[in-house]
């Protein structure tokens, strides 16, 4: 069974055949330089990094599974944003006290107002303690949870890349008596000394509760790892020949950094971003559990789960549906992250 990934099309098999031909030709004509150059002209261009990445990623079934789950989730989240907020088909905030604690797939009770009935004629995932439609709430929550993950990771990546890049590229510059590198890395070390979750909890508890506070705080306290390995990548890339060549050509420094160095340092950043989204979603659910989650008008999966924990016996679906949803999504992010790590890291390839 072959999986289809956009852009990969039918690259895989023709290419593998031709690579065998190339091996043979290079052996046969190795002593005859003119013939070899003729043969090379007929050969396909060498595999680009992107094709190589796809070839490895496609073999990793766990990562592919995660990838498709995430694509589906992205679609659900966008649809959730549209259908619960802009064009309200599923109303997550509608309270129907006559329809409390209905199990999944049950139809509304005859007492409920006809205008209050859910769109599909039944409660796909049941109702909660206020008679709100759990399906609509999960639908809305998918967008909120995912956006918390993405925004938090966006913030932490920006801080991490800027600080790591600065200290990797301009590390030797002196500011008074200390270098930029010392300044930034000692600050990073100091931040790493704190227990992250406790720090996030403190900040979220002390600041006024809002969804933006949570996104920003999670982002502000999780950039340390990114900064450290961006710095390490920059330190090693800065010494490589193509950077020296670029400098010799007189290319401006900003262009060297952003066009030549950043793309080469991005691979580990991608991996940590994917895994960062997963851990941001988990952190948000942990904060919800402790009572510092996203405040009521928004439903998030963590919210629904921590509200549902009081009804494990009376209404188990309130607990299990969000719990399993978080589990599947976080698992998918982790699997994709790990697949990316395998596919992007040349050191691991031989294994």
């Amino acid at each position: 069974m072959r999986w289809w990934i956009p852009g990969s099309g039918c690259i895989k098999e023709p290419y593998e055949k031709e690579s065998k031909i190339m091996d043979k030709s290079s052996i046969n004509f190795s002593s005859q330089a003119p013939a070899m150059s003729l043969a090379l002209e007929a050969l396909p261009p060498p595999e680009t990094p992107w094709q190589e990445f796809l070839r490895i990623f496609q073999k990793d079934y766990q990562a592919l599974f995660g990838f498709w789950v995430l694509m589906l989730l992205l679609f659900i989240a966008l649809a959730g944003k549209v259908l619960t907020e802009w064009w309200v088909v599923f109303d997550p905030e509608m309270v129907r006290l006559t329809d409390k604690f209905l199990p999944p797939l049950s139809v509304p009770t005859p007492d409920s107002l006809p205008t209050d009935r859910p769109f599909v004629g039944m409660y796909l995932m049941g109702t909660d303690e206020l008679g709100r439609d759990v399906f609509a709430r999960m639908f809305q929550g998918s967008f909120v949870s995912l956006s918390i993950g993405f925004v938090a990771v966006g913030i932490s990546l920006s801080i991490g890349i800027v600080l790591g890049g600065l200290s990797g590229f301009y590390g030797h510059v002196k500011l008074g008596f200390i270098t930029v590198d010392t300044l930034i890395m000692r600050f990073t070390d100091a931040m790493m000394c704190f227990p992250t979750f406790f720090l996030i909890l403190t900040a979220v508890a002390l600041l006024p509760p809002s969804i933006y506070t949570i996104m920003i705080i999670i982002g502000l306290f999780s950039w340390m790892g990114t900064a450290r390995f961006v710095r390490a990548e920059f330190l090693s890339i800065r010494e490589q020949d193509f950077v020296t060549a670029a400098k010799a050509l007189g290319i401006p420094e900003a262009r060297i950094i952003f066009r030549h160095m950043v793309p080469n340092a991005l691979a580990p950043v991608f991996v940590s971003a994917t895994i960062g989204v997963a851990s941001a979603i988990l952190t948000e659910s942990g904060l919800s559990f402790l009572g510092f989650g996203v405040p009521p008008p928004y439903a998030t999966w963590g919210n629904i789960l921590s509200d549902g924990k009081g009804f494990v016996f009376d209404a188990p679906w309130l607990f299990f549906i969000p719990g399993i949803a978080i589990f599947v999504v976080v698992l998918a992010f982790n699997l994709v992250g790990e697949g990316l790590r395998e596919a992007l890291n040349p050191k691991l390839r031989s294994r």
Partner: protein
Amino acid sequence: MWNFILRNIGQRLILLVIVSFVAHSFIHLAPGEPSEVDPMNPRMKPEDIAKIRAAFHLDDPLHVQYAYWIRDLFNGELKSFKDSQPVLPKIWDRFLNSLPLFILATILVWTLAFPAGIYGAVHRGGLYDRSTVFLSYALISVPGFFLSYLAILWVVGWLGVPVISIKTFGMEQAEPAYKIMDRVWHLVIPSVMLAIGGIAVLSRYVRSQMLEVLSQDYVRTARAKGLQENTVIYGHALGNALLPFVTMFGLLLPGLIGGSVIFEQIFAWPGLGRLAYEAILARDFPVIMTLNFIAAVLTLSGTLLSDILYAVVDPRIRLH
């Protein structure tokens, strides 16, 4: 060697000063003050708030407050805002409660993660390997409290043992055997929950480390010499694969406070994490800052210890 240790300690002391600055200013720059915990209470008059602020030095500039905090911390006179109890004995009591949880969890992590990871690496690609790798992803992907609730439901429902809090109330008159079993049951489930994340992460590290070592030339040489596979793996490869994990001991220490907030809350365990949570709810700045500070001290001494240990066990590393 001594030179190295002294310089390292010096660097870490400087870092600790930065950490204390960050902890202090971070807590005080955030809005929300101890005097504002209960703003709707009609009995809180403005003069009461002014009195509270004066008593806690909240009207002074930040650097003066910092000086007060450091002075009181090292005199041992630091008082909690909430109940005016000295902070350090309070933290010490809770630390003693957290300690058995932490020790058992650590033992579980280190005894289970290594065999699991090593076996997976040796039988790479087999059914066992693939399923444990997948399982470890699954375990780090479950929200901790979701899993804990499932565990509580299952254990209490099927085995009928108590799991909430540190011991059952009213067991003082019971036989010693009952008392001990009671304590053990209360301890087991939270420790397992606390350990699960660590087992999942550490076993994957062990596995990839072992794979890295097994692919090296000297292992191939050992095999080519005709050594038995067991000698190659356990005699030649294992030692080198385990070396980096000496450094991980140090990183475990701060988990004592940070990682246990949620689990101690679920299991109503009166430990450090719960103290931290209560302090946050009460805006109890001295306790929050001191906990952060202690966590930083633990982390720094942990990394120092592991640096030295690493140099001791690995002769290839020269200290200078």
